[in-house]
């Protein structure tokens, strides 16, 4: 008998997070086999009946080699659930892949974020849960409901408990993140500064200008993601040049691709903090992680029960 209960399915992208979410919900992960054939095509076997169930598929955007594989895994799992008569299919994508390719910034540039949104819908997705979208406008690319959760409550809690909050100033490493940082600064009743960067090519920054006074302060650099870490490292150098006492970086998505590990090792950052929306495989002793699985689990629970999710935007679940 179908019970319309929660079924948690996980792809291969982030097994630990899936396990944490399942643990927070007190539910097991459903049996599912996601493999690759020797010809590199993805193969999905769903190990139990999901007819008329409320299905949640946890898959994040990660992997320098496998990001497209993981995306295809997600699509094929969704499609498999759809053909297996699931009642509702929700894709839980903590880090939305291709989120930065969200505009036609030059002629004939692809808007891949929109394409991914359409692909998810085509596969048969009914709902999307994600976290700290690079641009919240991406929600508008979908015709289905998108819950964009915030890591902010978790980050806030971390800052209050694990940083020298009394002597801190929040810093946004670029103008785009100013809003996010200002919101945090308001809640913590702190000052904030801003770094203006001039970008010439993707992943390369040329010049940085600091707006605000950071002398003698503990600077908390806040951003939504750390990829190659060029921005963070340069920003921390700039801040230290301007008399900052120490610099901590706090990001939501720790992608850390390319030479990030090397850059962080050589950097003057005293700590780099990220959430576990993507698996972090980094051999850096200044790294600290925040677990956001309670927020994701609570969102799943509330969605399943038809309760409001907006409480999670401002509050941390216990």
């Amino acid at each position, binding site marked *: 008998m179908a019970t319309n209960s929660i079924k948690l399915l996980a792809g291969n992208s982030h097994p630990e997070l899936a396990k944490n979410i399942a643990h927070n919900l007190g539910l097991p992960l459903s049996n599912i086999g996601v493999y690759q054939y020797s010809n590199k095509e993805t193969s999905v076997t769903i190990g139990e009946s999901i007819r008329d169930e409320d299905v949640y598929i946890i898959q994040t955007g990660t992997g320098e080699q496998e990001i497209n594989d993981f995306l295809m895994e997600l699509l094929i799992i969704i499609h498999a659930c759809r053909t297996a008569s699931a009642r509702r299919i929700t894709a839980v994508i903590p880090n939305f892949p291709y989120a930065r390719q969200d505009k036609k910034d030059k002629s004939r540039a692809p808007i891949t974020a929109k394409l991914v949104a359409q692909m998810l819908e*085509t596969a048969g997705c009914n709902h999307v849960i994600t976290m700290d979208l690079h641009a919240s406008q991406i929600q508008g690319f979908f015709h289905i409901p998108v819950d964009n959760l915030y890591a902010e409550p978790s980050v806030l809690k971390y800052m209050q408990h694990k940083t020298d909050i009394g002597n801190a100033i929040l810093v946004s490493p670029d103008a785009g993140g100013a809003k996010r940082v200002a919101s945090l600064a308001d809640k913590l009743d702190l000052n904030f500064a801003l770094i203006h960067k001039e970008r010439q090519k993707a992943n390369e920054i040329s010049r940085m200008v600091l707006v605000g006074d950071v002398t003698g302060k503990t600077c908390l650099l806040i951003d939504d993601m750390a990829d190659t870490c060029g921005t963070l490292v340069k920003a921390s150098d700039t801040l230290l040049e301007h008399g900052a006492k120490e610099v901590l970086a706090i990001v939501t998505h720790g992608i850390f691709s390319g030479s990030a590990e090397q850059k962080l090792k050589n950097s003057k950052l005293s700590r780099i903090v990220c959430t576990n929306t993507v698996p972090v495989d980094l051999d850096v002793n200044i790294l600290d992680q925040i677990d956001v699985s309670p927020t994701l689990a609570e969102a799943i629970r509330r969605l399943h029960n038809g309760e409001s999710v907006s409480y999670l935007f401002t509050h941390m679940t216990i």
Partner: protein
Amino acid sequence: MNNIVVFAGSSHVDLVDKICENLGIERSQVKLGKFSNGETSISIEESVREKDVYVIQSGCGHVNDNFMELLILINACKTADASRVTAVMPYFSYSRQPDIPYTAKGAPLISKAKEKYTFDSHPGTPVPQSMLTVEKPTSPSSTKSHNASNLDSPSKQHALQSPTPLRPSELRPTSSTSSRIPMIPNGKAEHPEQDQSSNADTLFNASNSSYKLWVAQAGTLIANLLTTAGADHVITMDLHDSQFQGFFDIPVDNLYCKPITQSYIQHHIPNYQDCVVVSPDAGGAKRAAKIADVLELSFAMIHKERRSQLLKGPPGATLTSGGGVPVSAKPLIESLDLKQSSSGSGNNKYVNTTMLVGDVRNKECIIVDDLVDTSYTLTRAAKLLKDQGATKVYALITHGIFSGDALNRIGQSVIDKIIVTNSIPQNETIKALGAERVEVLDVSNIFAEAIRRIHNGESISILFEHGW
């Protein structure tokens, strides 16, 4: 050729260059690459506004990367106001949908590269010479069937029942970095939910034995994704299932390799009139029989079957289909591939049999198939044919995927010559097997002609029969 733009995906630029040469145009400029976080990046370097755009990408190599690249390219062209975007996929990825999970037959398995393969080791498997022989599954020779020997022993027990993914951990073809995606057969601990149970078999069946496992069929999804990305038209070649065309809401032109294959047989196989065309499985029988019909050659077929142990030769009448096809009085049943499934109840015993329908003694054989992936089917077929007295075995293949250790396997098989088209890059094949054992047929002119005709709004059906 006005207003035509041809883009090459990164999978097979050589083929695109040849197609463009045939069309007498230049390949259009597009920059393909990846961002440092692995996301596919493309940049179209010339205007496509109001143009007729063709994006050529074969379903080989890193399939998902290439497929995403194709989708992004199509989408970018569409948003840049191309009047029509045609996806040209010489080999259509995900077109073959294995439905039996992970058995040796249904799903492509990967196995360790070996020095020796028992499937064709001549002294290895004793071959009965009688016309109708059924080996008992428990006979010692059965354990030497290549299937059983290529799987690790635990999986041998269950291979017929359900997936038993096991990965030789040292095997990561092409990629040196360790992937988080388990291969088939996969490692035991790679899966979060497999921590408790090391065996996927017990895992899947423990809680719900009444639930029948099935493998997700991605075909419809792939078709819909192409449409979603903005493709207006699809050109492909020798689709594994012709029903696949029905998954699309847009026109699909399925080109045939048959004219090229035929002409190769006629011009390059000496005494082809005496050859036998062989289909390595029942699914390809129609395709092979057509070629045999046109060239007036005799036809034989290999039939694989999983049946209960009480094996009888099928009635002769059912086998003598196709008038004029020489069929021996009694079918030859060769139990090459005997396996005993010991899982489940004790009387649940099955054997895999392979039988040859038709006579190949002292003949040259031409195996015709649409694709070769792991090459299990092909090498096994070749062995059966040689065992049945074939003097020479040619293999004529449209799509040579050759994944896993297929090239090793073919290298050590009894196949005398393998003829394959360049729908997928074949440089590796030539390198592995040597230029004298491999012949690569060029299909670029068929694609070029199809593109030319579609661009001009002409019929392309003549290509189905006469090539170009």
